């Protein structure tokens, strides 16, 4: 980041109003393919119009005779919080103004329109909504916007963990609790490939398919060259490119990336070779031995989705380093491998054993910090970097002007174990409010560690003389 931008973002008092409006926080160019450009606010069609190709509304009959209503501007503002933009530093006490679901302005002097819905986050930390590279149980059906129970307990719990976007099935979708609008972010951002050394047949088939397509692309290129001069040039047949082959073609053209499940070093090597040979972008999921060959992964531009906590004991039969390492994420990062973080469990569970799934998504990033990854990078691993691997970083993953208004607003440092999510905002709508939902409202309401516990429900037959006991004396505090 340039020094100038740094200065702009530092939250110094001279930033105000118009100046802040001018700060376009668009930083590094997205590494992965961009889906077709979406209309931007201020000039483009209204936000309420569902995005590009995957819009269900497009299928519906359009009525020409209906009067086109002028776009109504809906403002939503989060003010007073400590804004962690993730992509460009922190702004203390800044206001984030959102217009029609997108971030419109960020700064300390941003004027909030009169009719805006205002969320006063003074004293709270505002992070971009967390992005889970993969999740199950939050959405339903093959098309999440059709099959999702938007009032499910799972979704409430995921929002309580600060998650606003995840890949469900092959769709990147938002956790729009209480709404089915604007749920889909991107369909099929990744092609799943099986390239494990354990299934040589699948590997052979994949290479064959890719070789054939490479050949096809060469022919197409030759045809294009020839057709400029020769009118009788024959266009290569592309009717056979269906199903898997079609996906592979997209891969070769660089429209999507491939996702390969690979853990051990030799599988990771294979992924690297595949990336080199065909020039495709690969995301490896698992990669617990990534730390043993991080430079190789970096050289091939392979990205990784890791679970820092993974524990696989070293295999003493090998001379080379083996097994998992808590330092995996840190080492990969040091060598420049883009890394997203996922916990061992990809859903939320309610059976009580906690800290191992998306209910505590932030804790997995904290484990990466334990292994040496800088805190900011760990947070990127559950926000912007995850979004980048999914090819949706133009919409989610950081707090930047023009991006979706998805926030995770916490009562403390995101990676601290006592931190609770106070609000989760999705599409400029408060999708989770800790004090309005019953799930966590009794745990440290307004930060009060000595708040009394809720009354228990006792079956009537046990009588009412089991009163709550008096609270213990104030305890000495340590740690924080």
């Amino acid at each position: 980041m340039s020094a100038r931008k740094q200065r702009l973002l530092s939250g110094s008092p001279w930033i105000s109003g118009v100046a802040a409006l001018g700060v376009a926080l668009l930083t590094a160019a997205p590494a992965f393919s961009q889906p077709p450009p979406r209309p931007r606010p201020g000039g483009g069609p209204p936000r309420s119009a569902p995005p590009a190709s995957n819009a269900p509304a497009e299928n519906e009959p359009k009525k020409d005779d209906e009067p086109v209503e002028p776009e109504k501007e809906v403002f939503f503002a989060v003010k007073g919080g400590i804004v962690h933009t993730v992509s460009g530093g922190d702004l203390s006490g800044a206001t984030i103004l959102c217009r029609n679901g997108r971030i419109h302005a960020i700064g300390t002097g941003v004027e909030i329109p009169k009719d805006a819905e205002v969320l006063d986050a003074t004293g709270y930390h505002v992070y971009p909504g967390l992005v889970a590279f993969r999740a199950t149980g939050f959405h339903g059906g093959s098309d999440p916007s059709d099959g999702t129970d938007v009032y499910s307990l799972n979704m409430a719990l995921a929002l309580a963990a600060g998650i606003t976007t995840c890949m469900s099935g092959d769709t990147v979708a938002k956790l729009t609790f209480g709404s089915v609008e604007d749920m889909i972010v991107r369909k099929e951002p990744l092609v799943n490939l099986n390239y494990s050394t354990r299934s040589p047949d699948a590997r052979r088939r994949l290479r064959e398919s890719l070789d054939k397509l490479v050949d096809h692309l060469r022919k197409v290129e030759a045809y294009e060259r020839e057709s400029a001069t020769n009118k009788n040039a024959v266009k290569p047949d592309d009717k056979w490119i269906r199903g898997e082959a079609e996906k592979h073609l997209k891969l070769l053209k660089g429209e999507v990336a491939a996702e390969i499940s690979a853990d051990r070093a030799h599988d990771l090597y294979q992924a690297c070779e595949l990336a080199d040979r065909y020039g495709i972008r690969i995301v490896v999921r698992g990669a617990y031995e990534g730390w043993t060959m991080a430079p190789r992964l970096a050289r091939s531009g392979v990205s990784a989705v890791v679970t820092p906590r993974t524990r696989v004991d070293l295999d003493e039969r090998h001379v080379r380093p083996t097994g998992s390492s808590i330092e995996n994420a840190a080492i990969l990062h040091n060598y420049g491998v883009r890394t997203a973080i996922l916990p061992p469990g990809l859903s939320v569970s309610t059976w009580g054993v906690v800290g191992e799934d998306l209910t505590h998504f932030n804790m997995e990033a904290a484990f990466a910090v334990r292994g040496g990854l800088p805190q900011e990078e760990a947070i990127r691993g559950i926000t912007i970097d995850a979004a980048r691997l999914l090819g949706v970083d133009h919409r989610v993953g950081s707090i930047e002007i023009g991006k979706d208004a998805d926030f995770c607003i916490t009562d403390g440092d995101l990676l601290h174990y006592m931190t609770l999510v106070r609000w989760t905002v999705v599409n400029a709508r408060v999708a989770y409010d800790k004090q309005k939902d019953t799930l966590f409202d009794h745990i440290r309401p307004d930060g009060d560690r000595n708040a009394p516990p809720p009354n228990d429900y006792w079956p009537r037959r046990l009588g009412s003389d089991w009163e709550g006991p008096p609270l213990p004396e104030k305890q000495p505090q340590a740690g924080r």
Partner: protein
Amino acid sequence: MRMRMRMRQRGFAVCAVCIVAVPATGIAAGQVGNDEKFVVVRAGRVITVSGEEYAPGMIVIADGKVRLVGQNLEYPDGATVIDARGQTVMPGMIHVRTRFGLPSYNRPGVRGDLKALDEVVLSQIEFEELLEAGFTAVCYTPFGDGIAGVAGVLRTGGAESARRVKDAAYLRVDMTDPASDKGTLRNALKKAQEEIDKVEKARQEWEKKQKEKAEAEKKQQEEQQKKEGEEPKPGDKPAPSPPKPEEKPQPPKPSPPKPGDPGAAPPVEAPKEGEKKEPEQFVPPAMDPAHLPLIDLIQKKYDVPLFIELDQASDYLHAEDVLKPHKEFPRVYWLGARLPNRASDYDYVVKALGEKKALVVVPPAIYYLPLTVEQYNLAAELTKAGCKVACAPWWDAPLEFDRVRSRLADLVRGGLARADALKSVTAHAAEAAGVADRLGTIEKDRDADLVFLSGDPLDPRSEVTQVMIGGEIVYERKDGRR
């Protein structure tokens, strides 16, 4: 003639009290024809549902329709008087969503051509069970995933010819599994629009052809005139040109084939309706009968509303999402429940339903908020929010029919107003079934479908003693039977 028919019907009736009526001569109630048949009910209490309660009350019925309700009414000398002075009379209850006595099977996809009433074989169904519980009409519902068909309203007793009240009450749309049901409805709407477009296109082509023809004729005429060598007079207009589409002189509407016979050929009206001079009446191409109810709705014919079945709060949002471009469609919601332990999360959408003043059908049950022991009176909450609430038995078992009144009493104890509880099985139920103009209240000109109870309807001790349908007693409780 009419008298005789009635006499014949009486023979079939289950009724035991019916007394041969004598045509009235002394007419008290205004303009009444001489051959009308009068029945008078004197009751300890009359609950009209639509307005007041009269205690004691009187209902004057003429030819199966209520003529007067009130106290101390005059009636013709020869009227049959039913003495129910120890009893309470209320409108017959209506079961809005039932398969009672019908086989239940799944009809997935879009089947707007199916009518539930076509499945009904009167002799095969134990209507007595419904009468016993006080139901005078039932709305048979086609079941299945997707858009299963059209429901119809049937009386539970009375003359066979008068049993069918309404053939097309509502179009049942399943939204309990939005993952697939949403697509079904979305595609059905799309297809319906395509059908409309198809007809419109055909009409335009036809009109264009007509125009061309007319012009050709005109030219021919002119040529003929020229040939005849007569100079045309300036005032003479050329032959009347065919109407321009903009003027729309009664555009021949595509008359939908009766869904009763789905395979029927498109009605070819032109030859029948004379005008042999102009045989080029536009014959619309056949439309897919399975989509006709939706086509009608899109064409703003709102006779048959949608009956959208939901399982949980989220389904409502999904239904509204698909119907977003069709806000004006009339619709009724059935709020069923899938969650275990009588848990219901409809609380999330009660406000939205209330703001729309939606017509909602629910089982008469106290729910729990999910994951709590907090009771939730859905019917009361919906009413409070502004909805019209109808109640239908949770499942189709005689025991459950019997329980409806006591379940309603539970709802009343839990905060639902008594009047709303009574309406939920009468007036509002009639509205949900699209028969509010005939059933559901005791008012002038409504059908005399009445239930006689030994006490208050919400008192679980009170029993249905008699049931009247179309002015005739069709059920009477036999002693010992319960």
